[in-house]
């Protein structure tokens, strides 16, 4: 295979994927970002780092996760054969732990004693609190006050795991404001603190290192589908907020031209109303350390995202996705809150699996796509998380149906 034409070697040394990415941070943070990059480069070359990560993945997280043939869903939709990559079966209930384990090992290497993170739905917060407890480090989680209300069970989990959960009321009290507040903490406590960013966004090297830690999803999928089907899948589908579960699934397949990839953004109430679809409804800009597509006004003010799913409620997207959109390697679509609920219900009904509302966006697109494709077409959907945390939200939205 030619390495010259690979799409997998980004970012460049300045942290750019095409015109996206970079290190747009305050001077106070620059030395630390450069240290992190150097430490990550060293860790990548260190067999002990990989060995320790491998043991934790297997024995602490429960990897590898199954690639599961969704037989009844496939039958009900009457088209393509649907496999689910079961990231919902990971310890802590989502793909987020893959990244947190990698980053906490970096924190340990760098001698940092205090961990901070932002969280939206709370899954990244729970995963961060979990690894901090596992390694005995102090942990502070910033969470928007709006999200604290709609994701109570995760707030309780983080507290039980010993993390301090700080409500963020500035701005709109959602994920972007939590990230602002985490950055303010980091700039203040730069000496002793490691910031575990939860998605493939932020200043370089975060988009690359989070992607690398999540790529285990796609690497396993590749092995598993070869074992089950003897060939690569035709289509990969994953939901996108910042885009870490999608990047993790897609990245190992980027150079396989036969594999079509679809990233599903949160279309909220519709793209002409309130939504969280940065690629379908945003413009390039600079926020949280990187240049990417952002929901913003004509005057460059960041606009509030809206999604039924707290984890997708972010006005930006990882820079590598922005680039893959630019070069048209990945197709990006949006599904609405209502459609996501249909995806949620379908998986409960046909497979006995309660999916996260985030993952339900990917499922919702599959509900539309699978019936249009032949039976020998293979789709792999990243079931990035489980839906226990979403019971309150779903119950509110489906009150009339559940009352019957």
């Amino acid at each position: 295979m030619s390495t010259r034409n690979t799409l997998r070697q980004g970012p460049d040394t300045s942290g750019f994927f095409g015109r996206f990415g970079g290190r747009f941070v305050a001077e106070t943070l620059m030395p630390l970002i450069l240290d992190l990059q150097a430490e990550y480069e060293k860790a990548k070359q260190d067999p002990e780092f990989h060995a320790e990560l491998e043991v934790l993945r297997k024995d602490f997280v429960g990897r590898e996760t199954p690639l599961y043939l969704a037989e009844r869903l496939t039958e009900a939709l009457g088209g393509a054969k649907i496999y689910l990559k079961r990231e919902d079966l990971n310890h802590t209930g989502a793909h987020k732990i893959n990244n947190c384990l990698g980053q906490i090992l970096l924190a340990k290497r760098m001698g940092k004693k205090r961990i901070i993170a932002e969280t939206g739905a709370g899954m990244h917060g729970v995963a961060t609190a979990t690894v901090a407890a596992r390694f005995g480090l102090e942990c502070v989680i910033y969470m928007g006050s709006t999200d604290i209300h709609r994701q109570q069970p995760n707030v309780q989990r983080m507290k039980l795991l010993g993390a301090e959960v700080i409500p963020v009321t500035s701005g709109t009290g959602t994920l972007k404001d939590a990230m602002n507040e985490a950055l303010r903490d980091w700039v203040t406590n730069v000496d002793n603190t490691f910031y575990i960013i939860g998605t493939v966004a932020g200043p370089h090297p975060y988009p690359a290192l989070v992607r690398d830690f999540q790529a285990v999803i796609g690497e396993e999928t590749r092995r598993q589908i070869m074992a089950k089907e003897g060939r690569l899948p035709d289509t990969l589908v994953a939901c996108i907020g910042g885009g870490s579960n999608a990047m993790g699934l897609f990245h190992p397949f980027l150079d396989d031209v036969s594999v079509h990839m679809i990233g599903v953004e949160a279309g909220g109430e519709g793209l002409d109303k309130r939504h969280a679809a940065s690629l379908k409804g945003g413009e390039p800009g600079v926020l949280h350390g990187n240049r990417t597509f952002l929901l913003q006004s004509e005057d460059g003010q960041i606009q509030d995202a809206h999604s039924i799913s707290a984890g997708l409620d972010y006005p930006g997207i990882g820079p590598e996705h922005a680039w893959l959109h630019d070069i048209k390697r990945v197709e990006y679509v949006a599904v609405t809150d209502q459609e996501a609920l249909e995806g949620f219900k379908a998986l409960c009904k046909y497979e006995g699996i309660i999916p996260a509302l985030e993952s339900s966006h990917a499922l919702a697109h599959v509900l539309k796509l699978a019936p249009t494709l032949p039976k020998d077409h293979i789709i792999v959907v990243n079931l990035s998380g489980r839906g226990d945390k979403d019971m309150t939200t779903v119950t509110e939205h489906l009150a009339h149906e559940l009352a019957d």
Partner: protein
Amino acid sequence: MTANTHASRLERRFAALKEESRAALVTFITAGDPDYANSLDILLGLPEAGADVIELGMPFTDPMADGPAIQLANQRSLAAGQDMLKTLQMVRILREQDQDTPVILMGYYNPIYRYGVKRFLEEAAEEGVDGLIVVDLPPEHDDELCIPAREAGIHFIRLATPTTDAKRLPGVLTNTSGFLYYVSSTGVTGSAAPTPEKVQTEVEAIRAHTDIPIGVGFGIRTPEQAARIAHFADGVVVGSALIDCIAKADTPEAGTRAVLALTRDLSAAVRSARQ
């Protein structure tokens, strides 16, 4: 360097103050806070009240390096309808009555990027903007705005911080002009400042590497604190304390009076610091 006709307004101002053997009082307000009319009143009153250099914040929804005071100032300004056109218009109106006080626009990159770097620099130069401080553009991204700004005749003023070590300092100083803004503490704007002795040591370490004036900011709130910093720094930056005057006032007009009164007190303190 003494004042000469080729020097910029900012260079002339620092040179003149050096002749007077005193530091510059650099005041920060957010443009459009609490609203356009009152913010303009404050801006027009600042030179007479003793501000030697004016930093005018370009409001942004996500001021990641700012503490609560300036975050709220940004929110008030945006809620009152401030945008980039209005901010540039404020500078134009100031220039109709004041051609000597340097004005520095300060903020985050996205509103400039969205406005268009070329268009922004042309209009900023036209209206009489002297310098830019853009928090989220480190030297690694000089191609984005710093170099185009210098080519447009606008200073790009860089922040140096306690984390800027000897290895990074030369890179931070390259392409920096007008003055260097030394942020005396890690943390957000409005954070408590370290002791003046510690700051003095750090500023003197930087002086070994550069001849450009060094302004010191972050956590300077009172005339007494300003005087202690003015003893050794070339400029003293006060922001959050002025913004708090606006936030705490019963009426916008009272806020304007309070900002200008504090500016007068700070100015007197800075002027007498080395006497």
